[in-house]
């Protein structure tokens, strides 16, 4: 660990609520830095951190590594292994296209390509206005609805490529509404 981070509860000045949540979560794990099995709790910590921040930026990785008493390289290796973890920020609207077997044979690849075409980005990328990102994933357990797309937790079944622009527009309108509310407030 090549880093110096002020100890507990890290970065005294930080009033960031997500960060404080992560810190509290790590406290509850009561990690013993001498325990050879301490890494068992790493994956669930990374899950939690990603749910807080939306992604796992370098400094969060380093901070988690420090709390576990392992190297940044170790944490980075685990993140790189699992598709679920991401080190780049995702869009506010996250499009996940299922590419599991059932979805794939029902044309999920065409749906995915249509999302890429309409949004002008590749899978794994974010639009320049940070609004949309596309990921492909494996089986969401709704094979009867294949092909399945989930967007911000909402599930769309039996999606056809020609429905893609409508779906995108729906979310875009909602997002604009939320933004307008924020500005008005």
């Amino acid at each position, binding site marked *: 660990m090549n880093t110096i981070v002020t100890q507990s509860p890290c970065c005294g000045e930080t009033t960031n609520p997500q960060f404080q949540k992560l810190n509290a979560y790590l406290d509850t794990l009561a990690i013993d830095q001498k325990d050879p099995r301490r890494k068992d709790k790493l994956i669930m910590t990374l899950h939690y951190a990603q749910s807080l921040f939306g992604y796992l930026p370098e400094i969060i990785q380093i901070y988690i590594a420090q709390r576990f008493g392992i*190297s940044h*390289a170790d944490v980075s290796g685990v993140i790189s292994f699992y598709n679920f973890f991401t080190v780049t920020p995702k869009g506010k609207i996250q499009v996940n296209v299922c590419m599991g077997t059932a979805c794939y044979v029902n044309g999920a690849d065409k749906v995915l390509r249509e999302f890429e075409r309409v949004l002008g980005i590749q899978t794994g990328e974010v639009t320049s206005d940070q609004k949309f990102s596309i990921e492909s994933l494996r089986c969401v357990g709704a094979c009867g609805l294949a092909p399945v797309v989930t967007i911000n937790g909402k599930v769309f079944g039996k999606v056809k490529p020609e429905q893609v622009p409508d779906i995108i527009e729906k979310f875009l309108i909602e997002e604009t509404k939320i933004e307008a509310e924020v500005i008005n407030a």
Partner: protein
Amino acid sequence: MINISIDGKPVSVQEGTTILDAAKQIHIDIPTLCYLKLEKMNYLNQVASCRVCVVEVEGRRNLAPACATPVHEGMKIITNSRRVLSSRRKNLELIISNHPFECLLCAKSTDCELQRMVWEFGINTQRFDGERSHHEIDKSSGALKRDPNKCIMCRRCETMCNEVQTVGALTAFGRGFSTVVSPAESMPVANSNCVYCGQCISVCPTAALTGVGYIHETWRALFDPKKTVVVQVAPAVRVAIGEEFGLPVGQDVTGRLVAGLRHLGFNAIFDTTFGADLTIIEEGKEIIERLESNQKLPILTSCCPGWINFLNYHFPNLNYMVSSCKSPQQMTGAITKTYYAEKMGINPEDIIVVSVMPCIAKKYEAALPGEETYGIRDVDYVITTRELAKMFKEGSVDLRHIQDEDFDNPLGKSSGAGVIFGGSGGVLEAALRTVYEKMTGNELKDVNFTAIRGMNGIREAEIKIGEREIKVAVISGLGNTRKVLEKIESGEAYYDIIEIMACPGGCVNGGGQPYAEEREEIIKMRIQGLYEIDRTKQVRKSHNNPAIQELYQSFLGEAGSQKAHEILHIHGLMVDKKKVVEEADFKIFNV
């Protein structure tokens, strides 16, 4: 004891023994590639990833990796059935199917374990031709070269870096075919927390990890008529380079080495041990000052840049302990470009200093911003023992048949104390020989501090100097270092003087030394070689080296003088170029 049979031969072994070790006992040699065990260093790489050691076990459906399968009572093992041999062969062929076929141009050629195994298996066609990795070669650090295309994912480097050295710079990044062993987030080595100890290089079976070479630059300097090219040789080189020419391990080849360097065309051949003696004078003064005032103890020797990096990255709170002295390499360079240049009437800018080092970190050290004197680099190029052996072979020097010659003056004279710098414990012993006499005013009759010699990674002793019992510790290997520093940090242990070397066993086991299979035995013999040189030297204390005395009288004044500080000390600790996370970095989350 457990009774098993291997290829029909009965054998009894301890519980927990692997099939591989059991077979060894009856001289059945099962091939291994990823597996590596270095007992004294607590190094064990047993990931069973290459599958070259598979054997048949009666009653088991699948073949078992011999390196990682413990025996059980009544086990019947077959090591050379048709199924075993064809599987091993296929596994090896699959490994090389994604390996660059550029052995002719490879730095590791003839030292490569993969190449040797393919040759031993008699594989002469490329049966599988599929997709290949195309990764960028990383030479960003100027010291450690990473070529992931040549990696066979044996994970030996990771085990060395993370478990033995506890540096934690390497990880397997990504998954499946695209996996690559790299620093965190696949960043360049130069931005990572790598300390350049080079131990990963010495366990890498292929050329996936090597040193960044400076042979070309050195030849170019040698053929430049406008330059005076000065070479310096580290102590650990003289007891190792002979191995590259088939000479006995640990044999002192100092005289032949000097003759060879002169044959290559170096204008002056100096000895880094001169710089070592000088380090002792400067550092000795600091040690005495700190001991007498009882301040900033323990004092740590700072000859090893790998260890200094480790301290800065992992124990920044303790870096007050480090002496401000430059390392012997840098001191020899600095004196060459000041004292020697002045004496010979040469413009220091026309001098090129090349050092021959057993080390990768020395390449990094020589390029550090603070390592210069009056605006001129102390050392220009650093080549390793292996690189020099190559230059000798290219330049028609055969160390087996060359007459001994002597170093040039004035930086060629050294004491036995300077020579033992090359092994773990040597720097401290050299310092004690001088500190004892300076502090007590008495002559030290027996210069052999045998209490601090040996091969253990952590050695402690109490040495009586006058009225005072001085607590000393000698540590080699960074994992051992971590253990001791943690104790110092928590107040659990106290020492007055500590010597630390990053490589287990010291510089003789550096990342630039000739590759060695029976490594632990060879390190011991190299260290013995150094003590043998010391034993037969007339001058065995640094302060009695006449060339050093002359240097102070006619040039530096006294130890610790202002001039000595300007030339021989680092001004401000080495800069930590690594990323440091600060509070401000977290502000991006304050939305």
